[in-house]
């Protein structure tokens, strides 16, 4: 009964936190989200991705070759809720809720204390690291849930060995959810086999280990077909060995985890790190008790997963890449949970709950400030809000041709295609047949697109001003002087919530331009 009540409390809280204004916060629609959702829409309606490839094992996108699970699951949410931002983010939000419930059950198994387990579940839900990626329409949150489930089942397996098989299958399956897990999950599985070898190789447990590893290998068959193609390791250019140790240690630094967070403005929340700041105390307490009982199964599992998880992220030059280091969230939440539990044991129950409620209210206020006030207001540019607004304009205007500058600006084609309801069949047509036939060969990415009444590429000032169209760019793409010189008439401006102009649309006037030219210009021949 109490268990059901605890789960209900958590569910209600998470449903609110993860689903409230899901389509508005984060603002806009980031390119990674729109890539997943547009390809999901394309699969749903045509059985093919944006390039016309039928049910790919890895999705090419713009050369990143992302894992497919999130895309295929999003076809279900789009089928249910239509082509909306809500549908694009739904699977992530569900994965976030499930992760929070799983954290509760994990902590309950570890501590046998329902109160602290609920508290840790609530803290997990309120952690910006989990909350942000659970409200984002790409694969990170889903992969984290599968990875956490793998850890949990492995922990169960240290008492009931049949769960060992399930955990290895889950680790293997998680590699289809995100690129990071493709490295972290197998490495962790190998390390766990080494650490727990005495237990796993016991006569009565061997069959489960064999079942687990053979099942994991079977699950990897689609990957094995692609392992020799360039598509399997597309991010090699991100690797950087210099400063690796410093970056690796930084993933455990209190500054990064509790005070500063991810320096990338799209991957972070204003004025908050990945955990509320006061969790630094349970963090240190948790690590202390983890090392004190370092020979226990739980500590071995936590230490192993903590050591492996940041490796891929630390190998890139990013100072603190939260999306790549997402698996690290699992052992850190467990460490913090152990710390919270120990603090509660020291304090009297009433004092502990009172203190927690007080801190919870302050944390909730600061979370509301950072997540629901500052994030939509200050970061809309980084989340591509301007392209969502532009796509809405394009959707209502089929008469004009739109040329969107992509020379410096972030890739926007998938956002435009998704929000403006571009038919995937129309989108697929101009794509090169060569790409479809050499899909996994990492064909050089061409950032120019043309579909329906939209073109996305770098502006060509020698020719574009002589065509009847609306040119869209920011104030560096199209300056006031250029607009005057080429007789461009401002049609619209797209601003952020603080009034900063993000994009402007200018109608060309080829006739006026040609009339102003005294010499003969070949571009003016067709202009009347």
């Amino acid at each position, binding site marked *: 009964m109490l268990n059901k009540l605890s789960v209900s409390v958590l569910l209600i809280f998470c449903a609110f936190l993860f689903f409230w204004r899901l389509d508005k916060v984060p603002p806009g629609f980031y390119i990674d989200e729109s890539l997943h959702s547009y390809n999901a829409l394309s699969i749903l309606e045509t059985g093919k991705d944006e390039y016309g490839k039928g049910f790919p094992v890895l999705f090419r996108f713009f050369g990143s070759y992302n894992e497919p699970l999130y895309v295929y699951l999003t076809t279900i949410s789009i089928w249910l809720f239509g082509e909306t931002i809500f549908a694009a983010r739904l699977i992530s939000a569900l994965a976030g809720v499930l992760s929070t419930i799983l954290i509760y059950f994990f902590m309950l198994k570890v501590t046998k204390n329902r109160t602290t387990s609920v508290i840790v579940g609530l803290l997990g839900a309120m952690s910006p690291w989990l909350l942000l990626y659970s409200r984002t329409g790409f694969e990170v949150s889903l992969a984290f849930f599968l990875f956490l489930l793998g850890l949990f089942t492995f922990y169960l397996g240290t008492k009931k060995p049949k769960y060992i098989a399930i955990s290895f299958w889950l680790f293997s399956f998680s590699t289809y959810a995100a690129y990071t897990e493709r490295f972290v999950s197998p490495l962790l599985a190998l390390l766990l086999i080494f650490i727990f070898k005495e237990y796993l190789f016991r006569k009565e447990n061997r069959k489960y280990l064999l079942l687990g590893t053979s099942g994991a290998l079977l699950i990897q068959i689609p990957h094995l077909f692609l392992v020799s193609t360039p598509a399997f390791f597309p991010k090699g250019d991100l690797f950087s060995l210099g*400063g690796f*140790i*410093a*970056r690796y*240690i*930084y993933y*455990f*630094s*209190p*500054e*990064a985890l*509790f*005070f*500063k967070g991810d*320096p990338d403005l799209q991957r972070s929340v204003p*004025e908050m*790190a990945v955990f509320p*700041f006061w969790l*630094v105390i349970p963090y240190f307490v948790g690590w*202390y008790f983890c*090392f*004190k009982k370092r020979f226990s199964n739980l500590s071995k599992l936590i230490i192993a997963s903590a050591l492996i998880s940041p490796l891929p992220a630390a190998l890139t030059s990013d*100072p*603190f890449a939260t999306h790549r280091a997402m698996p690290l969230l699992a052992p850190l939440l467990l460490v913090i949970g152990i710390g919270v539990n120990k603090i509660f044991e020291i304090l009297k129950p009433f004092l502990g709950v009172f203190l927690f409620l007080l801190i919870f209210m302050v944390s909730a*206020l600061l979370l509301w*400030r950072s997540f629901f*006030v*500052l994030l*939509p*207001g*200050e970061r809309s540019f980084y989340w591509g809000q301007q392209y969502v607004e532009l796509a809405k304009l394009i959707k209502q205007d089929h008469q004009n041709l739109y040329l969107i500058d992509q020379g410096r600006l972030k890739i926007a084609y998938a956002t435009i295609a998704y929000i403006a309801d571009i038919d995937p069949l129309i989108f697929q047509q101009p794509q090169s047949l060569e790409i479809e036939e050499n899909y996994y060969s990492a064909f050089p990415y061409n950032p120019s697109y043309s579909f329906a009444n939209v073109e996305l590429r770098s502006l060509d000032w020698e020719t574009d001003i002589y065509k009847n169209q609306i040119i869209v760019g920011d104030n560096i793409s199209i300056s006031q002087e250029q607009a005057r010189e080429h007789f461009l008439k401002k049609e619209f401006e797209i601003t952020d*919530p*603080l009034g900063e102009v993000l994009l402007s649309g200018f109608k060309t006037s080829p006739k006026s331009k040609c009339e102003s030219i005294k010499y003969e210009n070949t571009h003016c021949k067709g202009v009347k």
Partner: protein
Amino acid sequence: MKKILIFILIGLGNYWIWRIFETSLILGLSCIIASVGLSNYLINNKRYLLILSSALLVIIGLFQIKKFDIRSFTGTSALERDFIDKRMRLYPSPRVAHWLEQRPEAIAFYRFTDNSGEVLDFNYYFFANHPRERAAVTEYAKFPWFYLPPFLGGLYLSLKQKRNLKFHLLFMFAVVVTAAVYPNEPVGFVLVFPFVVSLSAYSVNNYVK
């Protein structure tokens, strides 16, 4: 003899102490003697060592506090005020916005938490603040990176013994004062120096034993 050699290696075998000596001989000597006192306190648990070290930490603290300006906590530049004004417009309620963005207490709280993060950052002490180097600051590794495991080991070993509670309370107090004062480079968070040295030396001594 071993203890002395270990202390010399750790206490003097780092770039930080020499930068401290360059700034002030008294400050450097205070740091070294405080480190000796705390190291021996961890081993022998003699009360007078803690008192002596605390007195020296007060001297070190005074060096930092004399350059401290309370206005650095609540004062705002024109650019910051403009930024705060923009933020105010994002809130549904002006009163809530005022309390969370404009109140000196709120500004001081945010700055203090930011500073606390920097004081607690391992990379500041062992990796020249890499990968989050500060703009317009010449960073340097206070200690060689391989001193980090002994430091963490010393922290763990000292926490195992309840008799070291006063040491840890003093350590936390030093961290809080440093976060409040936020001294500049090249001296940096010098109040923390004796604790890092004493914990590292404690750990190495235990290992050698």
